[in-house]
């Protein structure tokens, strides 16, 4: 895992990375991201994550939003492969990274389980 954003090759070649990086954010260390292949089976991934205890939340079109019982959220953007992890703002700043890592682990395991 790295604190520095992963490199971007070009707008036409979306990032594919299973590294957790700090997301563009204004509230310190609150948002984190990883990028999955566009070919990911997003329905299967969401199903694996909800089977693992996350709850489906209302979202705008084009977005899958899942929540944990501690108020953290996962946002999946199937049309770009972006996955954003939003740690709840009440988590102390020094613990936010660890909260993000725990959710990231769940994404990785669910992703591997949902791969054909």
């Amino acid at each position: 895992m790295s604190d520095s954003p992963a490199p971007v090759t070009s707008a036409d070649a979306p990032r594919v990375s299973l590294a957790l990086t700090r997301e563009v954010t204004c509230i310190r260390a609150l948002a984190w991201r990883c990028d999955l292949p566009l070919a990911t089976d997003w329905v299967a991934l969401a199903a694996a994550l909800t089977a693992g205890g996350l709850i489906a939340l209302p979202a705008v079109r084009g977005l899958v939003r899942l929540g944990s019982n501690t108020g953290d959220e996962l946002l999946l953007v199937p049309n770009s492969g972006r996955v954003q992890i939003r740690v709840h703002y009440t988590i102390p700043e020094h613990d936010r990274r660890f909260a993000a890592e725990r959710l990231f682990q769940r994404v990785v395991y669910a992703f591997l389980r949902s791969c054909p």
Partner: protein
Amino acid sequence: MAIADLRGLIAEQSLTFLAEIPYVYHCHHYNLFHDQTIDDALGEVEGARVRTVAAHNAFRELLGAIFEKAEATTPAERISLATEVFSWMGQGKISLDVTATGGRARSASLHYGYAWREKYGSRVKRAEPADAVAAGFASAATELAFGLAWDGISASEHKCLATRDAECEFKLETTTSQTASPPIDEATTRRYMVPAIRGVDEDRISQIGAGLIEFMRGVAGDERGLVAAFNVFVTAHLPSYYNETVYEAVHRVERTQSGSVPAIEALMREAGQVCVFNTFGNVLLSPEWEGLVGPLSGVATDTMSFCTAIARGLGFGHWLVGSYEPRKRLVLKATSNYEVPFYRSRYGLAKKPRSYFVQGAALAMMCLAETVKWTEKPQLTNDYYIELFRGKPRYRVEQTKCMMRGDSISEYVVDAL
């Protein structure tokens, strides 16, 4: 009656209302900067007083209209509904322990105090409380709950999250009543707008703006009365609060220190820049945007259209791109904005263009469209803000038409230097 059912919309003007009182969305960066600007103009003590009075007046308008529509008549009903509305707006969860002669209010999660501590708490020591908005709300809610006259109750914050207290606390006391001002409501707003016209890329802007308005309709305070969205804390807020503080401060400086007027106007414009950089920027970089609109292209004309759509989505009015020539000139227009109705109905015709917020926003939109490398996922940090806006000037803005002055439309011209 659910609070959400009290919402109204003039769709063609992108203006939003709650119980027919205008509201808009602003993030904590803008809110904190706005308040700091008022204090910079007037000094901390007078700035806090003006902000508290403005919040009181704005919430008297809103809560009065809500109580009437919801048929809330008893003090208990009104206090309960008022705090529910405050929380729904993302202003925080506050408890009021009050009677007709005052009392106290407390909260562990107020938008201003909480966000200030989050943004600056580890680096800056603050001595003054940050929650003038909550103080004004508390006094307005108490007055209305007990059928008291306008300004019958004053509220002051003596403990604050921003000053490292565990909770915010307010003392409410009786005070001398004053004459009420007529509310700036939907009917007033309609008097000071002109029919919406189409601008460049209108169909796309219109579609995205409507999508954002729909998205924002689902936004409401959480169990702490806060809204964390787009990586910022968001509030549904009352334009009357922003307008009264800005114009009272500017008018006072004009009366007492005319030499400082250009500096104060520049600060008010900068608040618009801060809004566009932080709120618009974070919306553009959000997964919600990516889902709703798609990944950012980084093309300047796209970004300009997107920013215009975001302004509409936040309820700022019918902004449109009159013309845009990248690296040369932007002509932004508005057939409505949230500054005009307040100014015209409170002060009459302005002698000069005074739409400071949109002036700054227009300049920042040009900057965001042309300077920020969106495809490289920039970090919207304070250092980056300083680099963009406080280095060598890249653009100059002039408001060439102003509906506050009686012009037929508001127009803002940004030229590259």
